[in-house]
């Protein structure tokens, strides 16, 4: 294309830009960039679009919200609170809800959007985990993802703490109690954060800066790197016909994905707006302003804080006094500081833990089906069970009142079950995965059950099997990429000298056995061929028998 043609299509403006930066060089390589198609690849998109929705609605809210704890007397459209003393933060949130046109809608979009944001990140993370998408070369993006999840939780908590209503103030009080439990520096931390004793008047302006500038700034930067890496490393894809470790199969960025992904942004925004129009969320005018000596029963945090709430509720009341001088609040420290710290650290390090245990340091672009990595899948299911149990315990009072149960019994149940149930889930999940592998092997070797029952002349019934489709075959055979368990190393070498690093190697081998040891043997090419022949022969033979006997039956009798 000549320059004048470019001018015709792109206009003078495009040419102006292209003369200064190599826009065409970028576009020529990227307009045709292929993205693979799968519904689960939309989860990360939902998270991204929710974040954009949060930026837009949040900017709108910041034009009216006053992050101030100065006491004012409310005088506005919401009659029940007229004459009530409250902070400016709370009063301005009431104003946004009742006096600014579209203000309530934007507040509800912002709150629902935040709930969807964290939910989308969480489910996206599960998808990436269970399909092994975190493996080389995508470990960096996994760590960024864990960082984004952590920041999203923090940002969400900061956001719903800002209006200074009774519920959010209670959340902050709990956060202060947790800060105080930190050994050595906790009291100082709390005094520095709150500008003195709780609640003070400094905290909400400070939290506001954290919520609208600091954390979203970091989130935005991390999302940018996250997407650049996805772009550069290209998306993973599920196994299937024609899909290899060396290619990407799908549809081009322009026009298909521009329309699909761009359109999906509007779909997510539209649905968020619909839910915000119809379903009320966080009606702070019902809760009332924060007063430290008041609280309503059944207070619940937003869903993504529920697991921490559950951990706090579940923990027995262990507290030590050290030499009568210092207090160590194990009852708060363990569930609210150590547990989340441990969970996020192990989560961030998981790619390296698995790499080390399995010795699999190869590059992977084809995703695993969860059944083909039974131990990883079982670990994930176990962790998820642990999380869900904490989360349910976080609502123990609501469960107790809804189902007329004793709240103490529920807590005791979870105190025990949290150690018993996840390991059981681990074992069961692994068994299920191995059983699914067995079924795959069966289908590969003997075909699928057609549901056609035939009867042989000798009276024997059998079900006819038919070979599976080429597509399914490609998917099942893909398991051949899975690594083998590492062999146990010899204790001594050929000369009877002790192997250096034996302990390290044998631990690795044992972990590798744990990961891949119980896998079903993969069918070899010969086996598949032999089974195919066998199946075909069997069918032929039986059809022949049936045919003969039918011919016999139909033959004219003499």
């Amino acid at each position, binding site marked *: 294309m000549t320059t004048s043609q470019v001018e015709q299509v792109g206009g003078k403006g495009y040419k102006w830009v292209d003369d200064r930066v190599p826009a065409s060089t970028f576009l020529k390589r990227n307009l*045709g960039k*292929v993205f693979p198609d799968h519904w689960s690849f939309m989860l990360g998109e939902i998270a991204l679009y929710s974040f954009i929705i949060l930026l837009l609605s949040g900017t709108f809210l910041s034009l009216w919200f006053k992050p101030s704890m*100065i006491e004012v007397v409310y005088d506005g459209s919401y009659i029940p609170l007229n004459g009530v003393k409250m902070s400016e933060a709370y009063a301005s949130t009431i104003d946004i809800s*009742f006096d600014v046109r579209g203000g*309530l*809608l934007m507040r509800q979009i912002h709150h629902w959007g935040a709930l969807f944001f964290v939910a989308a990140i969480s489910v996206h993370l599960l998808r990436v985990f269970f399909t092994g998408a975190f493996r080389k*070369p995508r470990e960096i993006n996994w760590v960024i993802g864990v960082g984004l999840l952590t920041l999203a939780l923090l940002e969400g908590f900061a956001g719903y703490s800002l209006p200074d209503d009774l519920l959010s103030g*209670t959340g902050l*009080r*709990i956060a202060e*109690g947790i800060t105080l*439990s930190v050994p*050595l520096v906790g*009291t100082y931390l*709390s*005094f*520095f*954060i*709150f500008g*003195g*004793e*709780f*609640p*003070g008047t400094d905290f909400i302006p400070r939290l506001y800066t954290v919520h609208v500038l600091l954390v979203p700034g970091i989130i935005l930067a991390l999302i940018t790197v996250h997407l650049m890496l996805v772009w550069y*490393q*290209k998306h993973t894809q599920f196994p*299937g*016909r*024609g899909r290899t470790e060396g*290619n*990407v199969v*799908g*549809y081009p960025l322009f026009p*298909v994905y521009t*329309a*699909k992904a761009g*359109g*999906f942004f*509007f*779909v997510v925004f*539209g649905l968020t*707006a*619909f839910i915000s*129009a119809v379903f*009320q969320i966080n009606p702070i005018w019902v809760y009332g302003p924060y007063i*430290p*000596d*008041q*609280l*309503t029963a*059944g*207070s619940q945090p937003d869903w993504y804080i529920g697991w921490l709430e559950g951990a*706090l*509720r579940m923990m027995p*009341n262990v507290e030590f006094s050290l030499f009568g001088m210092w*207090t160590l*609040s194990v009852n*708060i420290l363990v569930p609210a500081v150590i547990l989340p710290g441990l969970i996020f650290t192990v989560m961030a390090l998981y790619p390296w833990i698995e790499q080390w245990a399995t010795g699999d340091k190869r590059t992977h672009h084809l995703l695993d089906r969860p059944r083909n990595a039974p131990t990883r899948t079982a670990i994930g299911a176990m962790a998820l069970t642990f999380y869900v149990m904490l989360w349910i315990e976080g609502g123990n009072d609501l469960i107790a009142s809804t189902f007329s149960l004793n*709240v103490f019994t529920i807590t005791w149940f979870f105190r025990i079950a949290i150690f018993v149930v996840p390991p059981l889930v681990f074992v069961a999940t692994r068994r299920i995965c191995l059983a699914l592998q067995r079924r795959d092997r069966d289908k590969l070797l003997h075909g699928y059950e057609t549901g056609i029952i035939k009867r042989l002349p000798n009276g024997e019934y059998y079900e006819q099997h038919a070979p599976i489709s*080429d597509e399914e075959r490609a998917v099942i055979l893909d398991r051949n990429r899975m690594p083998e368990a590492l062999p146990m190393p010899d204790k001594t070498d050929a000369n009877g000298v002790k192997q250096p690093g034996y302990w390290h190697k044998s631990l690795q081998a044992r972990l590798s056995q744990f990961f891949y040891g119980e896998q079903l043997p993969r069918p070899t090419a010969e086996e598949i061929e032999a089974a195919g022949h066998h199946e075909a022969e069997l069918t032929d033979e039986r059809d022949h028998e049936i045919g003969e006997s039918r011919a016999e039956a139909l033959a004219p009798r003499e």
Partner: protein
Amino acid sequence: MSIEQSPHSEDLPPHVPRRADTDPRAAKRAERQVGLLFIASSLATVGFVAAYVFISTEDLLDLPFFGNVSTSNLALGLLMAVALFAIGAGAIHWAKKLMSDVEVINERHPEGSDEESRAAALAEYERGRDESGFARRPFIRNSLLLSLALAGIPAVVLLRDLGPLPGNALRHTMWTEDMRILTAETLQPIRPEDLEIGTLVSGVPEGIDLVLEEEGNLNELAKAPVILVRMDPEDIKAEQGPADDPWGYEGILCFSKICTHVGCPISLYEQQTHHLLCPCHQSTFDLTDAANVIFGPAARALPQLAISVDTDGYLVARGDFSQPVGPSFWERG
């Protein structure tokens, strides 16, 4: 419409044409649907502006199941939802029906650098290292590292004025000797005879409103609140304080209202058992037994406030709490 296969796609599953690929009428229909979705969006946007102008924020709509809802919020939200959703639905419909659905293949390339680039980068680094003498002149290097490490210190030091040091602030509340206990609701002093057996009221120190006004914050309200409970003296198994001079008054006991776990105000009272339950994390305190913890994550009993009556017959404190109220902290002891 012809279907073009991309050059490397022999291995892919064969392409199955869609109706719009083969039937021009189906393609035309899809085109109409997409266009109508975009027009629906435009109309909804116009409607949104009209709703913004004409619907007052005070209008309420009584809907079944939802109850009274703000008409403005509902109208703006639904119109906005349609305006946005229809754009998305139109674009996706367009992509699915009319844009090519033939899968194409991109080759992957190694993510990392090749050996040649690595060697070249290393050579460049070594050139710079040698030119600067970074490795050869350890004095410069080490003093630079020292100064850089120290340069971060002001960032921490500057945070010092975020707040005062804790001092003894967490160990005291505003309660003093002969300070009357007022009801938290109405700020009225309380006589023992106002409290029947089995009642529990929330209390605050007299003059707390002035203190809050003066300090301009709610700090004292996060520490000083108490609960007063009256029970049959027979039911009291134990009290805090010396056995010969119990801190209650004729079966009236006064405890800190702030939970010793993480500081929620405790409010759920079970009259029959005199158990007090914190709604936040279900720590449960037995008020008949010196407010000891009988369940939940709190580790310490609620501090008891010693009370008596003044010459006018109103309940008063005999002094401040004998121990810090609220959550534990490291220096608590």
